[in-house]
């Protein structure tokens, strides 16, 4: 392999990591070299990723591509094995995009810049690693690798409650990610061959109990990251306290790691268990949407409101994943991409506003529109995208998820109706809290003490550039969704078929049991899955 092709993906992981370790060696007399260095690395990485996606990637192929495998720890059956396929490639591009813009957004970091850029680059590399790892232990390593940089990024450059938020983040995530290892070990040792290769693991047949156990393990780990109700509580703290560039990465990419993990592990490896848990995912997804929306409404802190809106939006991903249709899965993927862009844009703009007002309390901000019209305009566009205005990516993705759910033949009609209805309620709540946010922050009378001598400067060209960079693809996808969908369409169809193929077997086994359950749980006739064994 090494001789025949360029190790693109390894380069993608190692470039930011090596760059991170080289940060202490960069001479930084005037305090400006470092940010150019960071941005340069980010741009090179982005260029590489885009080049890879545009020229090297075959959109029609289903399986892993560009795979590279080097023996790493043969004693443990662990390989340095990286590859991309339809679902990892768009996320990879998103990662490079958001991280590079985050590095650009961090232009003003003057406090311990050396450490900051080192950690940002390490985080960058770790995220790329998560999305390209084809080996379960490599995936776990990369997953854990991202912990400490995020912890330090929150706890050094965060808001007033940063230490609490950072500790909560690391304990939640570290504790949850244990389950990746446990479930992974369970799968790897099942059968006659010890392997951590995802492709090989997907071919194995697992006993039903192990499959359910592993599913629960993965679900716990990814649910915390996604975040799924009721393990979402770290998110408002972490996102609320982190500085803008870190929030961008957290909301833009780290949440997507949870969704990616659910597709990659739970659905691809364990389709049979997915059938048992899909109704749970749907119900929790709805809870996420509605609860997230209500909770967002109750926040007075701008960033915390955005954080809860993330919780709400990620609920659509859950519903899409559990819909058993290609359309639903497509919608979930698109929702991840779209939310990655929108949330990053919103957090960036919130950060830009904070840089000027030095407060995140919405009642203290009012009337900013007159002083910073550019930020106001950009913020409004981003908020519109977030509340799923037609023509923006959020609308397309949420609509696709609804379509998928509504067309799903796995659930009963009443169940689907309830689900769609409740999600629609959440969808209605979204504009309410987002528009009220806009009203509180930008409209109204400017606060007396801020007007006369503190005339806030408007967005500078750099900030406008970053925001526009986010908004262009958002609108682009909104107008022409195929732009994003072509890259993963083949793969999601394949996965949906794989999961769907497991469905009828279960559905036909014991219809009697099903009806009995229906009587017991009138709301969940969708529980078509029979009891164990």
């Amino acid at each position, binding site marked *: 392999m090494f001789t025949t092709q360029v190790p693109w993906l390894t380069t993608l992981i190692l470039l930011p990591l090596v760059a991170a370790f080289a940060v202490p060696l960069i001479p930084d007399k005037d305090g400006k070299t470092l940010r150019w260095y960071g941005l340069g690395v980010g741009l090179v990485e982005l260029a590489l990723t885009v080049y890879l996606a545009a020229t090297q990637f075959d959109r029609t192929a289903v399986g892993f591509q560009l795979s590279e495998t080097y023996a790493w720890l043969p004693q443990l059956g662990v390989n340095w094995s990286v590859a991309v396929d339809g679902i990892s490639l768009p996320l990879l591009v998103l990662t490079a995009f958001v991280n590079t813009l985050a590095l650009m957004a961090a232009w003003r970091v003057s406090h311990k810049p050396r450490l900051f850029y080192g950690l940002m680059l390490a985080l960058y590399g770790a995220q790329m690693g998560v999305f390209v790892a084809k080996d379960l232990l490599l995936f776990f390593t990369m997953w854990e690798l991202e912990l400490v940089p995020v912890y*330090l990024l929150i706890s050094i450059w965060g808001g007033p409650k940063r230490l609490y938020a950072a500790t909560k983040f690391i304990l939640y995530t570290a504790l949850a990610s244990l389950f990746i*290892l446990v479930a992974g070990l369970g799968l790897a040792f099942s059968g006659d061959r010890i392997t951590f290769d995802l492709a090989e693991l997907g071919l194995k047949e697992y006993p039903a109990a192990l499959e359910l156990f592993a599913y629960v393990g993965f679900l716990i780990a990814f649910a915390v990251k996604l975040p799924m109700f009721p393990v979402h509580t770290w998110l408002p703290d972490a996102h609320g306290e982190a500085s803008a560039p870190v929030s961008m990465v957290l909301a833009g990419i780290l949440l997507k790691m949870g969704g990616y993990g659910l597709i990659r592990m739970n659905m691809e490896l364990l389709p049979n268990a997915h059938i048992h848990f899909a109704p749970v995912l749907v119900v929790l997804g709805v809870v996420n949407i509605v609860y997230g929306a209500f909770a967002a409404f109750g926040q007075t802190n701008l960033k915390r409101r955005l954080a809860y809106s993330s919780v709400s939006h990620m609920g659509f991903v859950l519903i899409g994943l559990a819909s058993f249709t290609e359309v639903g899965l497509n919608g979930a993927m698109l929702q991840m991409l779209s939310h990655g862009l929108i949330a990053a844009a919103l957090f960036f703009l919130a950060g830009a506003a904070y840089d000027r007002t030095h407060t995140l309390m919405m009642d203290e901000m009012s009337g900013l529109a007159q002083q910073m019209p550019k930020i106001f305009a950009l913020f409004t566009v981003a908020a519109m995208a977030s509340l799923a205005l037609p023509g923006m990516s959020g609308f397309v993705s949420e609509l696709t998820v609804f379509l998928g759910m509504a067309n799903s033949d796995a659930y009963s009609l009443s169940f689907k109706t309830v689900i769609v209805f409740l999600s629609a309620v959440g969808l209605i709540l979204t504009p309410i809290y987002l528009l009220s946010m806009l009203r509180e922050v930008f409209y109204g009378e400017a606060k007396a003490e801020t007007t006369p001598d503190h005339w806030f400067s408007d967005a500078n060209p750099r900030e406008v550039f970053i925001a526009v960079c986010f908004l262009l693809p958002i609108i682009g996808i909104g107008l022409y969704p195929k732009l994003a969908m072509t890259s993963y369409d083949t793969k999601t169809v394949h996965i949906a078929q794989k999961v769907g193929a497991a469905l009828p077997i279960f559905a036909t086994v014991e219809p009697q049991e099903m009806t009995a359950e229906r009587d017991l749980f009138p709301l969940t006739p969708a529980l078509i899955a029979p009891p164990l064994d």
Partner: protein
Amino acid sequence: MDLSNDLAAQLNAGAILPEGLVIVTLMAVLVIDLIVGRKASSWLPYVAIAGLFATVAALVLQWDNPNPLAFFDSFNSDDLSVIFRGIIALSTVITILMSIRYIEQSGTSLAEFMAIMLTATLGAMFLSGANDLVMIFVSLETLSISSYLMTGYTKRDPRSNEAALKYLLIGAASSAIFLYGVSLLYGLSGGETNLAQIAAQLAQGDSDQALGLAIALVFSIAGIAFKISAVPFHQWTPDVYEGSPTPVVAFLSVGSKAAGFALALRMLLTAFESVTVEWHFIFTALAILSMILGNVVALAQTSMKRMLAYSSIAQAGFVMLGMIAGTEAGYASMVFYLLIYLFMNLGAFTCVILFSLRTGTDQISDYAGLYQKDALLTLALSICLLSLGGIPPMAGFFGKIYLFWAGWQAGLYGLVLLGLVTSVISIYYYIRVVKMMVVKEPQEMSDAVQNYPPIRWNLTGMRPLQVGIVFSLITTSLAGILSNPLLTLANNSITQTDLFHVANAAAVETVAQVAEDADPVAQ
């Protein structure tokens, strides 16, 4: 007995060449110090280090020795013992590097300190290969008595005295218990002292011996558990760690512990082979207690040395996991983890020493804001602590992965889960120190850090300290990613050791062979 002309060949004396080199070094240190006096103190440590490197070189030559048994089977130089002796010798090298400045600053004599340290190393190395009850006990005592002496080395300090006295009393009691267990073993096997022969005799024994064997087992494990400071035989650890000179603590936590594990492996796998189920059970209990108590109590510590003491208890719990697994992968993961633990733990101790030399304190709260004053120290200590906590890509992560991997393979699901959960707890207290150093703002800096002296590496003994820090920093960060050679080494040390192939059948087979050349005296 017919003493042939070639005495050395008969004794297979080449097998203890590394230990011979240690003895030569130790004598050289003592005699040079006697003749040259204090003038030699500037270069004497390098003599000791050179001697230890020669020892390691000799150990490399011992690898895959086709004829490992020496001195009428009382010493076994198989690959397992070679790797453990290597770990011990290397830990002494790093300990000496870090102790030069420390001993200098405490105003005591360095030469004697190194001589005692080398004796402890000698005892530990012999213990790793001891194959005979008498040999085990004498080497164990060599290690213990030198450890007591080192613990109380700064004799004007009441804390050091207290530590030494505590260690001596508890150590002597545990030695007595161990000796009682061993003497029962001697009686039960009909007067054998060689481990293999004991195993053979016990395998033939009837069920009436079960109670005696159980008591022998429990008593022996009590002695071993004291050395590896497994809960509930850990009570000495925090007090001794806190009061002793820090280089001694470093040695106790790595070298002495490694020797304890080597002894446990050899003794339990040969002599107590017939009660494998029972000792697995006892060690499971010890591992559970050690992991829980070590990690939970470490959370509450305010002193760095005490925190590291509890963390070393917890780490011993993780290592025991590999032992309980009872597979080749399990033992290999133990060896691998100990190898990595050597670097990361000694690295952490080197940093603690450097900090206490510069500021005179080892309180965790006094580390606040160190990043602003000393980036290298902060980086090294952070990396070592994160590695101990098992954060990738540091070496400790891979060590733990291998341990858990092996444990899962052996079906120890509950223990692996417990290990994972407790290692998350451990992340909390390790990262607390990192947070102290890195996150604190300049205005939150502790007094100790505010009065931080200018960094000077040209003082006596500072350069070796720096070498130690940089070396462990590099190893800890790279040994995980590039761990393949170490893994191969650990695996080979297990697969090429007969110890792990001695099944019941083989044990019976040796009885006949043993009967022929059993008693050299009688011949």
